[in-house]
């Protein structure tokens, strides 16, 4: 059984795993990083999406041993990175997913978030069409995608200093709930 040196979320980790183990299996069952999910076994659903050298790829079709020397980011890495960078709470995109109801069962969302995060890094203010195409490898069975699109749009707009228009169902006088980084003081109405 080979000893691997993996760079996961900025940590250099030594881990032993047989050559036929995928990155997903090593993350989940060796390193305990269970945020990356397994949905289809073989590259059809995108639930296992992680970033490898900044690009969303599928951990279920990556042999762990071939990921040595590459920077792997999993869903567990986003909030600590945001905090290290001086931010508050979770990454603003994670926060936006929560604020928009994009997380129903949540199972596809770690992968979805990492795809969306990479999109915003290369295209900070994407159109809905761009978002649709960037997320077209991440199946969601709960949301019909709408609230996911809204979450990406909200995160992008706020990063640009704009507030997007809330959807039609949103109650009057109750605009987007505030971000974690702008949590109201105690007693203040949210």
């Amino acid at each position: 059984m080979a000893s691997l040196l993996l760079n996961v979320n900025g940590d250099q980790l030594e881990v032993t795993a047989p050559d036929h183990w995928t990155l997903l299996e090593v993350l989940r069952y060796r390193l305990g990083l269970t945020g990356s999910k397994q949905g289809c076994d073989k590259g059809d659903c995108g639930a296992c999406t992680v970033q490898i050298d900044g690009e969303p790829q599928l951990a279920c079709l990556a042999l762990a041993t071939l990921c040595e020397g590459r920077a792997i980011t999993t869903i567990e890495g986003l909030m600590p990175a945001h905090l290290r960078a001086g931010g508050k709470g979770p990454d603003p995109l994670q926060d936006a997913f929560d604020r928009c109801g994009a997380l129903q069962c949540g199972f596809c969302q770690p992968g979805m978030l990492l795809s969306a995060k990479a999109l915003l890094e290369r295209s900070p203010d994407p159109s809905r069409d761009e978002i649709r195409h960037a997320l077209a490898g991440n199946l969601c069975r709960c949301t019909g995608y709408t609230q996911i699109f809204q979450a990406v749009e909200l995160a992008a707009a706020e990063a640009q200093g704009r507030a997007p228009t809330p959807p039609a169902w949103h109650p009057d006088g109750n605009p987007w709930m505030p971000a974690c980084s702008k949590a109201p003081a105690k007693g203040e109405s949210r």
Partner: protein
Amino acid sequence: MLRLPKTRVAKPTTVAQAVALLVEHGEVAMPIAGGTDLLPNMKHGLFEPEVLVALGGIKELQRFELQTDGTLILGAGVSLDRIAADERVQRTAPALAQAAGLVAGPQLRRMGTLGGNVMLDTRCQWYNQTHFWRQALGYCLKKDGTVCHVVAGGKKCVAAASNDTAPTLMTLQATLVFEGRSGRREVAIDDLWHTDGIHNKKLGTDEILVEVRVPPRATGHRGAYGKLRERGSIDYPMLGVAARLDVGRDGAVEGADLVLVALQARPVRVRRAAELLIGVPSSGDNFAEAVAAVAEAAYAQAHPMPNIPGDHEWRREMVPVYVARTLHAAATGTGPVHHV
């Protein structure tokens, strides 16, 4: 979780080392690049290599150059995503860029390589299944069995070539550079194929695809790719149409080519395309008539089998539709032809 069979991974850093490993281990070794085709197939028990020779660490396979004479050199290890997004490819070989951009879904295009797509295993609804599933119906001709479930009494495997980029490279008259124990050889991509779904490529087990060379095209080169699939992402082609038009200064078609994929074991050229299109102005009613004639010729020539999932009669009906749309897209520079 569906597990991979046990295997060992070797990580050569040069093509020569990779070839040496393949020679050393013989038939029990297989090369792996992006792994997006091989690993699902291994999880299905279709391949059980004892040694995987990983190509990802070989720099030579990452060449990506537009030479001064206009030759495009694409290392086999370049990702499909990079090819799709590259302005040089979009300009000089639009059909290839479009096809690469429509392979599978976003993550798979980042992992999958051009070489891997060219060398993709053929696909069939009776083959790309788990061991349990295949065992329940007694296996098939391509793997572990003796019966073809596509063609009654069939003695020859009809699994379908399903690689989107291959037909575009054929229209572009690309050359493939292989390296094996006896050195490098160049093969016109047209000459790569067998009409045999089990092994649809003429290839030694020690050979690695090193690069793809797309020769310079005339200034009037136009190309497009049309892809039929159920969903707007992830799915393999149910039909792929690659078109090339060389348009002269006078606007007339001087050269034309049309290749279809996902019908049978190899990509197939529509034989009468050039004959019907050359000399015709590349727009207007005459062009539309010629395109309609090519579409009919393609329909007459194409006989999709119930090999890959999807209604094969409908796939046949779609041949003239996608041929016509793709030729028009090539002429007008509006490809790809894709439903989303």
